[in-house]
């Protein structure tokens, strides 16, 4: 395939991945890496390198919109970034040493788990905690967010568990070149009881910083191919921007079901492909 055609097709694929990732809230990376490896026959190391670049772009590109809403909590984000960035370093080191077949299988398992998380996402939100762990105040993690007619304050609990889960989220991000936003939201929302909207917006910021921690290692190890990163980065960024803008109008429920089935299938395919090589 000539370069122009290859670049154009990868761009279109990345655009769709970014669009779907934004509409479902799972991020572009989970579709992008299987797309590159299974459809375009790209070695998984180049695929996760390009994906990681697009993850940083998406996170930074969405930041201004998220800030405007006033939900994100910079202290929670910064505090947990200690865990995610160190995890990301470990993940990137692992990625440079792990066999590609194993990498594909791990990716497949994470995809299946993401499908499970996305399918479960329709559950009811938990109420805010007004009294949390005593460490919530000491570590300045308690906060407030705007509600109609005032402000709702909240505190957090189970900080060590949240911190440990964030380390895991960082490791996955560095190992597989994905944002692992779902795990980050899980750690904040479900474990630490950070309000859902605060969790999702704070997670967006954390994704970029986390990915930047493994990007340096990827670059030094030669995982980031310029000619491949070019269409992937611009495609995913464009797709996610459009997706975020039309998020309210789309039939998210139906889309989520379709997406869940798609990533489930991709996950199985990655595992089978990895095991057969």
């Amino acid at each position, binding site marked *: 395939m000539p370069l122009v055609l290859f670049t154009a097709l990868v761009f279109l694929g990345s655009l769709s991945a970014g669009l779907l990732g934004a509409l479902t809230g799972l991020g572009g990376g989970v579709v992008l890496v299987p797309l590159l490896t299974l459809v375009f026959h790209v070695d998984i190391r180049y695929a996760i390198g390009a994906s990681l*670049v697009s993850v940083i772009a998406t996170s930074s590109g969405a930041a201004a919109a998220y800030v405007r809403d006033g939900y994100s909590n910079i202290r929670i984000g910064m505090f947990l970034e*200690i865990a995610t960035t160190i995890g990301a370093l470990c993940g990137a080191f692992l990625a440079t040493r792990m066999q590609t077949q194993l990498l594909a299988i791990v990716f497949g398992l994470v995809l299946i788990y993401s499908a499970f998380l996305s399918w479960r996402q329709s559950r009811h939100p938990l109420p805010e905690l007004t009294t949390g762990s005593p460490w919530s105040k000491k570590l300045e993690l308690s906060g407030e967010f705007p509600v109609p007619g005032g402000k709702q304050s909240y505190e957090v609990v189970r900080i060590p568990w949240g911190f440990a889960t964030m380390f895991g989220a960082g490791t996955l991000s560095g190992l597989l070149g994905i944002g692992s936003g779902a795990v980050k939201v899980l750690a904040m929302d479900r474990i630490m009881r950070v309000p859902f909207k605060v969790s999702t917006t704070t997670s967006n910021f954390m994704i970029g910083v986390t990915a930047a921690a493994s990007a340096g290692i990827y670059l030094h190890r030669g995982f980031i191919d*310029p000619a491949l990163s070019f269409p992937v980065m*611009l495609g995913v960024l464009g797709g996610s921007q459009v997706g975020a803008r039309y998020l309210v109008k789309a039939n998210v429920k139906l889309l989520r079901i379709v997406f869940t089935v798609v990533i489930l299938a991709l996950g199985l395919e990655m595992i089978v492909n990895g095991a057969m090589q």
Partner: protein
Amino acid sequence: MTSDPITNTRAKRFGDRQMETMMGHLLQVGVLLASAVVLIGGALYVHANPGHTPDYRTFQSEPQNLRHFRAVAHGVAAGDPASIIVLGVLLLIATPVARVAFALVAFSIERDKLYIAVSLIVLVVLMFSLLHPV
């Protein structure tokens, strides 16, 4: 005389809002700039290699001149398209790093010792990844 803890927290949180708004803009400018550089480099690359058939089936690692800052800078100066794309990627990686550095400055102005320490740790981890020799 002790300061009222509630007003103190409010002042801090107000500072946080401003800080986050500026950071949001910082990130957006960074990603726009990086995208523009990648687009220019990418367009030049495609233009320079029209008949080239890309093959990513086998991993060969990128050549040394695309993996180190000084070599990339030389490539950009020489107008090498691949180096220009890598420069864009480096700018992109730099945006979240700049956000953490910016937070460090803001926490220093707020004299929040705990979060000065927290953002310093994050910054050190990021710097280690970017600068450590492999």
